[in-house]
């Protein structure tokens, strides 16, 4: 299970990726993050809100109060800049992931039965 420090630096990209599927409020974002990761991310749910506010300040997200299922919610959506940033982060992550795999592969081949 990935802990909060391990996810640090990736949280912004993960939140942008979740919102790429459409606007969501904070609780729904946390739920979707848990669902997509198969419960692998051991992240205090409270950490996503400062990240959402930071992304909004960076103009990557927009937000507004909406009534969802009879309750007022702050709903977040990707801005045009945010949509561009998702693509860039995915490409950057793939390059990083390939590099890590390349370094780990020889060790993994020896240790994995």
């Amino acid at each position, binding site marked *: 299970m990935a802990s909060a420090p391990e996810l640090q630096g990736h949280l912004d990209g993960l939140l942008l990726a979740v919102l790429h599927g459409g606007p969501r*409020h*904070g*609780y729904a974002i*946390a739920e979707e993050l848990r669902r997509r990761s198969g419960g692998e991310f051991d992240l*205090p*749910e*409270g*950490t996503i*809100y*400062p*990240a959402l*506010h*930071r992304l909004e*300040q960076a103009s990557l997200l927009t937000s507004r109060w909406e009534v969802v299922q009879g*309750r*007022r*919610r*702050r709903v977040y959506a990707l801005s045009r800049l945010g949509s561009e940033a998702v693509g860039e982060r995915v490409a950057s992550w793939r390059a990083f992931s390939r590099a890590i795999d390349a370094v780990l592969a020889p060790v993994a081949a020896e240790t994995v039965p």
Partner: protein
Amino acid sequence: MSIDPIGTYVRDLRCSLRVGAARRWRISREVRLHLESSVEDALARGETRERAEREAIARFGSAEETATGFNRLRLRRRVYLRRAAIVAVTASATIAGGSATVWALVSPSTTPAAAHPMTAASHRHVASHAASSHHASRSRSGTR
């Protein structure tokens, strides 16, 4: 456990936040709604309210940690605004200085000949030299 653990949590969070009133209200509201949704889901799964509230708060993380996340954000914003102000003032000063220099060089009104005797003398010398050259060339062309 208190009678209203979510209310207590939100109050603790509000006390630890070092942000403006509007942002504090928004954060408190978002966090309360999040915790209430979490409790509702747990109740729908058949958990007791007490257990649902305890788990919702545990999953959210401590009020102090959450507040620290927001307070860091504010600090970063202040640093950014201070840097932006410094850049703006420096750029304005550079542009103003540059404009003044260019204006001084190209505008004759800012360097009146009368105000600079040496310059006035130079002007007279150049003018008389030009006139004498013109006269000489006319004389030459007249002799041809």
